[in-house]
């Protein structure tokens, strides 16, 4: 077997942000279900959180390509 271990590394690195984004949107859906009129405000907060959490996964994707040949 041959290939690059960075792909495996990226798969592992995506676990954390995956769980994080799941938690954020679970909370968002809960919030909207309980109080539909707060949707606009919650949406902003949920997407800010998602942007921050997803940044980790995106950095992982980039580093997978950066370290592939190095």
């Amino acid at each position, binding site marked *: 077997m041959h290939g690059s271990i960075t792909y495996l590394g990226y798969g592992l690195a995506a676990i954390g942000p995956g769980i994080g984004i799941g938690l954020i949107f679970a909370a968002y859906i809960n919030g909207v279900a309980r109080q539909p009129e707060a949707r606009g405000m919650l*949406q*902003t907060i949920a*997407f*800010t959180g998602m*942007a921050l959490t997803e*940044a980790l996964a*995106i*950095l992982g*994707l*980039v580093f997978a390509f950066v370290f592939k040949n190095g």
Partner: protein
Amino acid sequence: MILSALFAHTPPSLSAAAGGGGFQTPSTSDFWWPLIGGNNNSFAFTRPSLVMLLTVALLGWFFISVASRLSLVPTKRQWVAEQIYDFVRNTIGRDVIGAKDFKPFLPLLFTLFTLLLVSNVAGIIPFVQFPTTSRIAFPMVLTAVVYVTYHVVALRRKGGFMGYMRSLVPDGLPGWLKPIMFVLEAMTYFLVRPLTLALRLFGNMMAGHLMLLVFIVGGEYLLLHTGSVWLGGAGILSFLFTIVMTAFELLIEFLQAFIFTMLTALYLSDAVSEHH
């Protein structure tokens, strides 16, 4: 084979499939597809450039032709245009930036959303089939526009450079925490935001397109070049799965256009808000 006759340079996985050689896994080099200007020229006119020109022409034609014949009772096309505008104006603009300040930014948001939507969906339109944003240059330019806009707006609203820097630190923090908070916030505003905004769009579009390519090229190889009934069956399954993944791609493409515009609005709302 037809492809290689048409273009000076055909991506490796496609030309290998056409030539009947060994299986070559699709990779990032499949996204480099120059049409005019040579193989190693960074300024070559590439396939995504062509798709981008088509996108702009389509959007320009559609919205200009709709806007020049507006009527109180909308036609079908006017209804579509109004729905898209309504979505950007109310769901993205007004709800995120706030009813007081959102109007000056609507042209930017609307342009970003429609441009991204069409150029992303170009990834699954037959015969076009290349998401423009899967080349990093296009997200980078769009992000540069957003980056300059939200910094300029913030500099104007918060009273120059010092006012902007002061607004990065929230009020009511203990003194020793302020420098740490300032470094973190400055990194977010100046580095992490543009980086993730461009890379999120690019990463999603490239990964999605690469996945479709793996299933199509792999399915073609299994079906035609292995000569085994079982592997041929696996190739047919792979093609069927491509159809499912194409529908999934459509969802992702819409979502990425929405998230990019949404985050632009979010950064702008930070820039126009009075306090942190």
